[in-house]
């Protein structure tokens, strides 16, 4: 049986999502510090997108397979 690498498992993909959230966190902090709303918006959208990955994968991608 072919062994999946960690980043191709759900746990691995969630780990990537976690790192995206950390990047978004830094973006927001930078945006708040520089009073730059675009950076805050980008960071916020990244957080929401990364958070929604798991329900999207479990209830849409895997169901359609």
């Amino acid at each position, binding site marked *: 049986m072919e062994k999946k690498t960690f980043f191709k498992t759900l746990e691995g993909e969630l780990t990537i999502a976690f790192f995206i959230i950390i990047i978004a966190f830094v973006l*927001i902090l930078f945006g708040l510090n520089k009073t730059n709303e675009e950076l805050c918006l980008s960071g916020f959208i990244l957080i929401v997108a990364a958070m929604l990955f798991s329900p999207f994968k479990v209830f849409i991608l895997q169901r359609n397979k």
Partner: protein
Amino acid sequence: MNVPINLFMWSMACLPIVVLLVLMIKFQWGATEAAPIGLLITVFTGLAFYKADIKLLASESAKGIWSALVVLIIVWTAILLYEVANEAKAFLVIRNGMQKLLPNELLLVIAMGWVFESFLQGITGFGVAVAVGAPLLVGIGVLPLWAVIIPLIGHAWGNTFGTLAVAWDALTMSAGLEPGTELYLQTALWAAIFIWVWNVITGLAICWFYGKGKALKKGLPAVLIISLIQGGGQLILTQINTTIACFIPACISLVVLFVLGRTKIYKDKWSVEDSRIMNREFTEDNSDKSTQNMSLVQAFFPYAILTVITLVVLLIAPIKAFLGQFSFGLAFPETSTAYGFVNEASASFSPLSPFTHASMFLLIASLVGLLYFRKHGWIKAGGCRAVFVQSIQKTVPSGIAVIGFIIMSKIMGGTGQTMVLANGIANVLGTGYAVLAPVVGMLGAFMTSSNMASNILFGEFQITTANLLGLKTAAILGAQTAGGAIGNTICPGNIILGTTTAKILGKEGLVLKKIMPITLSAAILVGIILFFTIIFA
């Protein structure tokens, strides 16, 4: 501030919580899937009905991530400690050793699911008792689902005065109680009385889970004695020193438990063969010769280190003051909604003191434990790397849900939804609000995954409501923190910790479904006691 408090706005504030509960309990969604949906609804209601802007949402999200990271480093180090013991197969030794010392299986479950968790909660907190307790129970043959449920219930009584009373201190700070004043002592007394009620329920519930009426009858003397020490001891100590009000009774109960194991009632082998919580095959099939030369004391070595470090750092004032001076937090600007609901600027939001933080104690205990087990040959070459890799792999996925829940609670608080939610309840119920005062505390703990955060969130609201309605302030505040402690049993963050270390991640909905009736009943029971106290006072 002009946030309209009406049924529509209240319903909108309620919506994310209702959806979250329905998804997790009715549809059995895991927390990692349900939390983002709750968050999405909170963002929508915040933008559309509470007139928040992107800057506010982004700022509250960043605060949420920071708070979550502070929690997650505890999660990681707690899991690391577990992995160290697991890699050395210390749980097998603990299981076998405890079975020898406590031949009565019910007493063994009480020991590993309630008394040991209480001890851990007394010093660590932040879900460590659940994260560590769940695999310990799996190690003595409890089914993983119950191995999560029992420590969730078992540790909860220690949430207010445990972790060296951090949640209590948060309540006194939030409600403006001066230490030593009459109101301070009365509030502590009420809190301890309500928590004692829950403590008795805890013991009885664990017996019931294990073997219904038969176990209840057998376990009743032990439950009453342990509860007298824990609940009664805490009650007395709250009037002397709140910092050690949970830890000291928890330690005494641990010692007394082993004495109980030698009494006539519990000294012989006893079990309920068809117990629904036990995995009989597991306990019979798991024996490992590689740990034959490890004693019970040696198996507990990392936990002993954890206890010593925690006590030395937190109870010796000069050491605590020296290490506590190193702290850092993040600066956040003032934000407000179009309704004028203001979140004040903070120069150092939720500062982290790394050297007095529970995660540091856990990390040191893990590393010392790792070296100790490695030196004795119980962790083989390559085992050290596996310990670190597995701990990170287990922490990060559950981190998504923890981040989601905390951001959700921050946005609800920052947009005024939490305030509307609480005010709506108080306005409608009047004096009858007393029944729901602990439920508000419970709700806060559910939303924030913390008794401390619940007290920060609702402490001021509870004291304002009590004054508005002419209710007994000390009793209402006591019910708030007791509700928060009870609510820790249903904290999604804590449940995830348990399901992660018990290796049943994704079963959070099932755990919540089993626990919710007992938690809600207990909170309402506390509310009813409070209501009649107020009526007849």
